[in-house]
């Protein structure tokens, strides 16, 4: 039971991170490899807000959300918009976002140094609950609640609001969306902002969960995020949620039963099988090719 809950907590963070990834891919058909750098940056910024700014853990979350959104706008403007009309926009976007991620990580190193950072002692409330015989901290409950709330909010926004309709229209056909009066550039920028804001919150939640922030934490979760969005189906939001939870659970159980060094083989073995059997992922839709 304890393992199950741990799997769900860590899985919900994976899901939140992966949803940011898959949102950009699903709507704009671009893989943003600066996403993991946003994840790492926001963890450091979150710690600084608590440490120097004297904010409580929870007050730091919305600030980090906004920070992430701003980063998202920067990423879109610098790494993706200039490539908009290029034939090789796919490859070029990958590389330019990797470059931007490198700059971001270098800046983090400048400001925070190469060492691992932690939240100041006493930042975490001590409240614990017992659920079906398993220990659960208040922090873990809040992590789960925040992740779920953000994912529900995102789903509502994409399916019900005017902006969400714009996003779906752009995903379907950018040219047609433009003709119909959708401001494609604005929708693109907003998509990046939301995506990065979610990635940022995931980063700070991850840092809270393990009480560390490292420069390499983005790279560590990047692969998992890619695995999750493939398993769930590229561009599928509920798919990313299910994929994230699945990965979290699989990891926890792999550590328990097979040994921690084999964790990634489980994740990627699963990924590989799904790609072969169902390339569109669990919940993804196959795009029909036009002649």
């Amino acid at each position, binding site marked *: 039971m304890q393992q199950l809950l741990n799997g769900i907590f860590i899985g919900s963070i994976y899901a939140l991170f992966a949803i940011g990834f898959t949102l950009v*891919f699903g709507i704009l058909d671009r*893989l943003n490899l600066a996403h993991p750098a946003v994840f790492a940056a926001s963890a450091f910024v979150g710690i600084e807000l608590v440490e120097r700014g004297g904010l409580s853990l929870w007050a730091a979350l919305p600030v980090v959300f906004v920070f992430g959104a701003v980063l998202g706008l920067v990423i879109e403007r*610098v*790494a993706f918009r*200039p*490539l908009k009309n*290029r*034939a*090789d926009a*796919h*490859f*070029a976007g*990958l*590389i*330019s976002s*990797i*470059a*931007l*991620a*490198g*700059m971001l*990580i*270098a*800046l983090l*190193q*400048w400001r925070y140094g190469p060492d691992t950072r932690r939240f100041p002692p006493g930042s975490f409330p001590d409240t614990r609950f017992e659920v079906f015989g398993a220990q659960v901290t208040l922090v873990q409950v809040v992590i789960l609640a925040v992740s779920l709330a953000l994912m529900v909010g995102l789903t509502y926004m994409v399916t019900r609001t005017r902006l969400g309709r714009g996003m779906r229209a752009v995903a379907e056909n950018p040219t047609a969306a433009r003709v119909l009066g959708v401001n494609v550039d604005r929708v693109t920028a907003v998509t990046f902002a939301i995506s990065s804001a979610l990635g940022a919150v995931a980063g700070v939640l991850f840092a809270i969960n393990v009480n560390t922030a490292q420069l390499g934490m983005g*790279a560590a979760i*990047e*692969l998992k995020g*890619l*695995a999750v969005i*493939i398993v769930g189906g*590229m561009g599928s939001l509920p798919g990313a949620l299910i994929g994230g939870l699945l990965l979290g659970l699989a990891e926890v159980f792999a550590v328990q039963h097979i040994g921690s*060094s*084999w964790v*990634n*083989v489980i994740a*990627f*073995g699963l*990924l*590989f099988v799904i*790609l*072969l059997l169902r*390339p569109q992922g669990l919940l993804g839709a196959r795009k029909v*090719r036009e*002649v």
Partner: protein
Amino acid sequence: MLGQYATTLTFIALGAIFAYSFYAVLIAGQLSLGQAGFAALAAFSGAYLAPAPDDVGDVPSLLVAVAIGMSVGALGAVVLGLPTMHLRGVFLAIATLGFAEAVRVVLLNQEWTGGAQGLGVPRVLTVGMAWTALALVAYWFWRMGRSRYGRALEAIREDELAARSMGIDVGRHRLAAFITAGAVAGLYGVLYAYYVRLIAPNDFDFVAAVEGLVTAVVGGSTMFLGPLLGSGFQTIVPEIQRAVGVEAGWIRPFLASLLLLVVILFLPGGLASLIPRRTRMPSGAADDDATGLAGRRHPEAGEPVVTLSGLGKEYGGVHAVRGVDLEIRAGEVVGLIGPNGAGKTTLVNMISGLVPPSSGSATVLGTTVGSTPVHRIAAAGVSRTFQHSKLFNRLSALENVLVGAHLVSRPTFLRRLFWLPSARRDEQAALRQAARCLERVGLSELAANRAESLSYGDQRRLEIARALASDPSLLILDEPAAGMNHVEAARLSELIRSLARDGLTILFIEHNVGMVLQTCTRVVVLNFGEVIASGAPDEVAADPAVIEAYLGSAEEDADGTGARAGATAAGTGDAPPDAVANLRPGAAGTLDTPDATRDAT
């Protein structure tokens, strides 16, 4: 002097070889990150299995290790490639990445690899050896570039579907490119192992794979020198920073990333785009000398070319094409007309093998359509153009047509490696063929221009030239005159008739009814997926069913667009075949009207 820079130079060579393993697939438009896995497998198996340098000497030991490593890498590529070759773009990248990660973790958990501590390997590799290996790899890709095989890979990168229609076996070519990547990555893995003294599975992780990819893309993935330039750039930038006294820490990675960003944003073709690209033109005049080209057997006039019986296609309950019986005989020029959505394109897609029929049967040039891959049907002698131009955009007009000649030219890559004169003769023959086709459509002056830079009308003509280059028996044109003005359309009509005089069988879809009536020997009218009329142009034009299909019935007050499109049919119906030039623009029956309505809907 050299000794001082030996380490840097060796790492440039190693980085470049690894980048070539990405280049090998990028040139075919495949994004793979599995090379790190191939390199890891090769490095460990090569270092583990090869005899120790102390026993057999440095060079033999390294050569054996390289042979083992390249075989292991290539084998790994086959094993990974067979199940994943149907994946595209990001999906392929992530699947191959998953493979590389799995390899890394498995190696990490083996005892013979030394696990995380790594495996000690004697240092054998010298600068000279590294650069020799690099030179060989670069030479391979240099000779590949202008061979038939190299062009086919580029065509696949630019437009896979069009490449298939040119008779290129895309699956085989993609797998071949992937295996090359595996072998080159294997070479890198072994050379790396014999240089750094201690290899660990984590030397071949995700970060390493991304670095290889970045090097290839920064250098330029469309020109064989790209990976070398990229590796030089990636290795020298930190060195220069160190030399000018930029201190370690955050500034170096920051500047390196910034430079990378600048290169990718402002040099679309990578560093290699700074090198001017020579465009090759055929030497000698475009005469009718067809030596060096594979011969084609064309059906005799009157032999059946296409036989359709009860052919139908259904999309989720909607019958796009229903019960079509049609026979086209060699030498005919058949025009396929009908209102929008009548199923014309679906019908020709079935004939050219792009879309499998859901009912009925079709035989094209002796090949049964259905389960036959597109490239086989092309090989049987079918060549086509597309409704929306599907050119190889970043290739020159001439190269586009050269790809079109894939089926009639001979493979030249292996012979080019050894500079055999026969390879040169065959390449010249293909070039002459391409030049002839360009001349035929009147594009000789624009041969060196990129396809994407041509005007719309020229792009349509280029597609026809490309289709002609394979010396087809059946030519299918899907709305060749779309977007042409009436002067261009009249010229196109003349071209089609001259091709028919050469004995080519032609099936073409066109909305420009006047042009169809003037050009064809037979007209087939399709409406709601069914053939409603078929016969000589003037018979069909007078057929009440056809007029109704275009105009709507007399009682029904047809909407504006339908009426105008119909007026063309009616207006030209009674006119003699030459009437196409006499139609007054502005009158109801202008030639451009049907195109305009088509574009608007």
